């Protein structure tokens, strides 16, 4: 089991007021799964993703990653986990405009101790996989939204992570680019990558194999998708 969560609780304290964001979640995610975490804003899905991706710690409860208890890890060990075990795709891309595309993709490898030549080699390889060979030395500011997100996908892949976290990856994209990104995610999943997608759109969530639905910090539904959506090409043709 890749991820096992038991009675996960997250409270935020702001002065006297305590907000209960996650109220005792338990679930498991297997290696190679494509899971959507869905729910309206304020349901706690982002907080859950932050905890699962080692950016945040739960107030109570247990989180095992590859059988290892995560809560007891130090800040540096969590940084190490982020570096080696997870890749991120954000709604707002989070590319560095001061660096070119290639440098952006190489960034995570600076922290995981990959040699300089290997960094360039891998970054080029993954950029070519997302179809951006011709944009290596572009400034991200000059790319279209879809291209930016593909750079971000390449960046998420370079350290061969166990899990890819995608936080509203299509939120800032037009529908065509959005389809493209979802297609890449599905292809990655077919190659064996574990993907956790956070979204509030049912349509996007249904690209996964399973949806965990949250509301007010509790899981109200956790079931496989019966009519999974596949995009076969960029012409937005839908195949069910």
């Amino acid at each position: 089991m890749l991820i096992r969560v038991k009675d996960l609780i997250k409270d935020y304290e702001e002065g006297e007021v305590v907000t209960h964001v996650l109220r005792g979640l338990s679930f498991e995610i297997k290696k190679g799964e494509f899971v959507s975490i869905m729910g309206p804003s304020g349901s706690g899905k982002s907080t859950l993703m932050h905890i699962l991706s080692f950016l945040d710690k739960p107030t109570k409860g247990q989180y095992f990653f590859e059988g290892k208890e995560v809560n007891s890890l130090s800040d540096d060990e969590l940084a190490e986990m982020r570096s080696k075990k997870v890749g991120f795709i954000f709604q707002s891309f989070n590319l560095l405009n001061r660096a070119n595309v290639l440098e952006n993709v190489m960034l995570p490898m600076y922290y995981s101790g990959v040699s300089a030549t290997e960094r360039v080699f891998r970054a080029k390889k993954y950029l070519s996989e997302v179809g951006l060979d011709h944009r290596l030395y572009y400034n991200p500011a000059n790319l279209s939204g879809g291209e930016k997100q593909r750079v971000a996908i390449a960046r998420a892949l370079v350290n061969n992570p166990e899990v890819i976290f995608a936080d509203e990856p299509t939120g800032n994209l037009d529908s065509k680019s959005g389809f493209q990104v979802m297609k890449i995610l599905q292809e990655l999943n077919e190659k064996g990558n574990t993907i956790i997608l956070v979204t509030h759109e049912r349509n996007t969530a249904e690209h996964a194999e399973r949806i965990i639905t949250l509301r007010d910090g509790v899981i109200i539904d956790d079931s496989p998708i019966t009519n999974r959506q596949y995009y076969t090409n960029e012409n937005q043709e839908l195949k069910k």
Partner: protein
Amino acid sequence: MNLVESITSAYKTLVHNKVRSFLTMLGIVIGIMSVIVVMSLGDSAKGLILNEVKTLGSNLIIIMPGKTNPKGPPSTLFGNVVTTLKYKDATQILKADNPHIESVCAYVQGTDVLSWSDNNPILTFKGVMSTYIEAEGAKLQAGRFFTEEEDNYNARVIVLGSKAAKDIFGEQNPLGEKVKIRKVNFTVIGVLAERGGGLAQTQDKEVFIPLKTAQNLLLGIDYVSSIRVKVDKSENINDTIMYIEDVLRRSHNIHNPDDDDFTVRSSETAIEAIAQITSAVQFFLVAIASISLLVGGFGIMNIMLATVQERTREIGLRKAVGAKNSDITLQFLIETSFITLVAGVIGIILGALISWLVAVVAQFFGLQWDFIVSPFSIFLGCFVSVGVGLIFGIAPARRASLLNPIEALHYE
């Protein structure tokens, strides 16, 4: 995270906002520039003094009144009048007949108006013994120097330095002319050849009269301000110094060297003492220049704090993809130090340029002024500028490293 990536990032920060970078660096540039200029000019001034040693010759011994530390400044430096050294001391040393002593000369001096026709320049007159020519290795351009007899009988004769002669008489032959100092008439009997070079060129502007004439007729004193002894070879300097100390102690009735009321030094140690004062002044000026480094440091800190704020999202992202707190701290420390180092290097170049200009101007005015920028000052400049970056980079770097990655990622 490695050094190259941090430096590349720092370089991009610099180029990204050129005007701001320039203003940020200005404080450090000026600070380092001042330090380099002060150090360079100080070194050049010391060089000038050392050239002086060569002009004087290394086989001179100088006797001064009063006791001083072996390496400290002379006790007369700050205007104290010490009257323990007498004409008799000079003659005692001469009489002792040490084979290494070639000549002995005692000095007094004063500054006053010298009148000749309508010309009334103010200049320095020196009362010296007839042995002056040998003791200083001076040469005559015209006429003769005064004799021992003339010195003994308060003769009213005067020998002019080459520059003084030219200033007073112009192209006219001064020999035989009468000049007046403090209502006493003197007959010009000789003109010294130009000596030039370093600080010694003041000798060209001075005039020379017999020691006793100066003591009795002009100054009304019975002491001398210094005595110079010329030794045959510089190897014999130390022996001769001890010998002279012995003679003077006997003559002054001193039994314990701690009670000495005179100081005997070689010309070299005397000038080393001056060089030491120069170093002290130099150190003081460097300390003042360092204040602008401090101000510049706070400027850098301010800008880097603003940069951290601007790059909050970047820091969040770096943490999300695996940067440890220490990676972020290190990155910002390296960036800050890189900026201050660049500023330091610019400061070193500008400082060297200014020192070079000063040297050119000084040489134009005939000083033996060398352009010196020591490797030590360059090293110090680099070291200090990196140090300023490291010290003033700590606060911004810490703030960056402590950012919460989740908040940082969602920072607008």
